[in-house]
């Protein structure tokens, strides 16, 4: 594909590079000076309390949102100031699993997964079918291809959405909570699948997750986001052992600590729980 040439000459340059990112909604600053580097081939996890802006960061990486200041670069291309047309072109190399799956409700499971294939390749029907079925089998759902999305359980729908997101084997995968609401068997299936495709295809993956135990099992590197900033980063083991109070609180699920559990409306003093 056209933008594969975008891989930088230097293999150490991160695939995704975020610098001094500031993002506001109205007068609320959601992200305030975030720096992130995601190396090629890695699986990087974003963790943080609900509503802190994890989905927002993914949207900034995929170019759906534009930063108020700071930059987002993918393979050296400045996503944050691309035109819509350039973005459209660029997205062919990015796979996104949205937090709620967002299956096309008027298409069957099969057609849902086949949509990106048909759009971006000229594969003959037999190959499309084989590709779709292989992905569907990989998420453990072979045999449901003719069902409509409303006939699936929440967990099944998430897995179908997963299959659709990875069907074209994009260079960069963004997963927004891929394992929430799945049973333990499905969780290990998805986890293994993420790891295997990532390593086999040399992908780079970004995963938003709440689940500390799971993150320790699949992530190479991990960012913890709290109050609009990176509160801690490192590989999961390092983070688990960290004594930084916000990291420690989040990794060990403590209610008491610097991260407020209750959402505070704008204007309320953030230090209220201290």
């Amino acid at each position, binding site marked *: 594909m056209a933008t594969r040439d975008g891989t930088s000459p230097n293999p150490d340059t991160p695939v995704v590079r975020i610098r001094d990112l500031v993002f506001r909604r109205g007068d609320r600053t959601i992200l305030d000076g975030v720096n992130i580097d995601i190396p090629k081939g890695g699986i990087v996890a974003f963790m943080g309390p609900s509503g802190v802006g994890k989905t927002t960061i993914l949207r900034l990486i995929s170019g759906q949102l534009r930063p108020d200041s700071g930059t987002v670069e993918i393979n050296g291309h400045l996503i944050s100031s691309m035109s819509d047309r350039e973005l*459209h072109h660029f997205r*062919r190399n990015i796979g996104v699993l949205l937090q709620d799956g967002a299956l096309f409700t008027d298409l069957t499971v099969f057609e849902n997964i086949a*949509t*990106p294939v048909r759009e971006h390749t000229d594969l003959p029907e037999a190959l499309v079918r084989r590709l779709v079925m292989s992905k569907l089998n990989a998420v453990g759902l072979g045999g449901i291809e003719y069902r409509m999305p409303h006939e699936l359980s929440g967990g099944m729908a998430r897995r179908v959405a997963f299959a659709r997101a990875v069907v074209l084997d994009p260079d960069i995968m963004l997963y927004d909570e891929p394992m929430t609401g799945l049973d333990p068997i499905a969780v290990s299936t998805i986890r293994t699948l993420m790891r295997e495709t990532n390593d086999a295809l040399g992908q780079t993956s970004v995963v938003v997750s709440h689940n500390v135990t799971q993150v320790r099992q699949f992530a190479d590197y991990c960012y913890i986001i709290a109050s609009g900033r990176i509160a801690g980063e490192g590989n999961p083991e390092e983070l688990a052992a960290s004594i930084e109070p916000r990291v420690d609180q989040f990794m060990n699920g403590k209610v008491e600590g610097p991260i407020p559990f209750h959402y505070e409306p704008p204007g309320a003093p953030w230090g209220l729980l201290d």
Partner: protein
Amino acid sequence: MALPATRLDRLTGPITEAGRCLQFLFRMLAGIRLSGPQILTVLQQTYLIGARSLVIIMICGFFVGMVLSLQAINALEQFGASDQVSLLVGKSLFRELGPVLTALLFAGRAGTSVTAEIGLMKATNQLEAMELMAIDPVQRIALPRFAAGVISVPLLTAMFSAMAILGSVVFAIGVIGLDAGIFWSKLQTGVYFEKDFLGGIWKSVVFGGTISLIAVYFGYSARPTGAGVGTATTNTVVLSSVLILIFDFIMTSFLT
């Protein structure tokens, strides 16, 4: 904040909106590819929104034809001219009532469902998911529905008029007992294909475009909530009905 600003907004709001709507139209037109799959989706949508409006259009057309003949005969009888009924029915039907009533019915039957469908897709992030797959939802979702509307409305108008003539035949010839030969010959000699019939069809193309543009645009720009989609659906009917009648007057005064 300040009062003058809101007043200005009231004035500029609709103008900005109209501008966005036109911009949306150009975005759609820029997406025309005439490729096999695209033509296929347009045909599919024409079936979904056009063919499915057929029954209601036919029923309404039939009764409009009957009531028109009834009123026309009542009026014409006073001058002993009730054999002119087909002329009156034909002219008023092909020029005005066919295009306008079909368009109003279409706005209620198909325009609303298009707005609701697109609005719901937006509310459930399906449009976002599409964009993320590098599929342009304007081209994939909005354009086929718009094109289907532009194609359907003239065809439905022709069908409406045909059924209305049938209704008129049933009433004038069947019920009142007028002479069938006179009925048809008046219609043939007095109603002109180009001026009356094609004039009406041209109007209906404009109406079809107006309704469809409003329907897809309102769906696309709906607030992504249940109430937002509801409001957008209502707005589609209200605005397209008003515009149909305004455009009808403008076109009638310029075309004839």
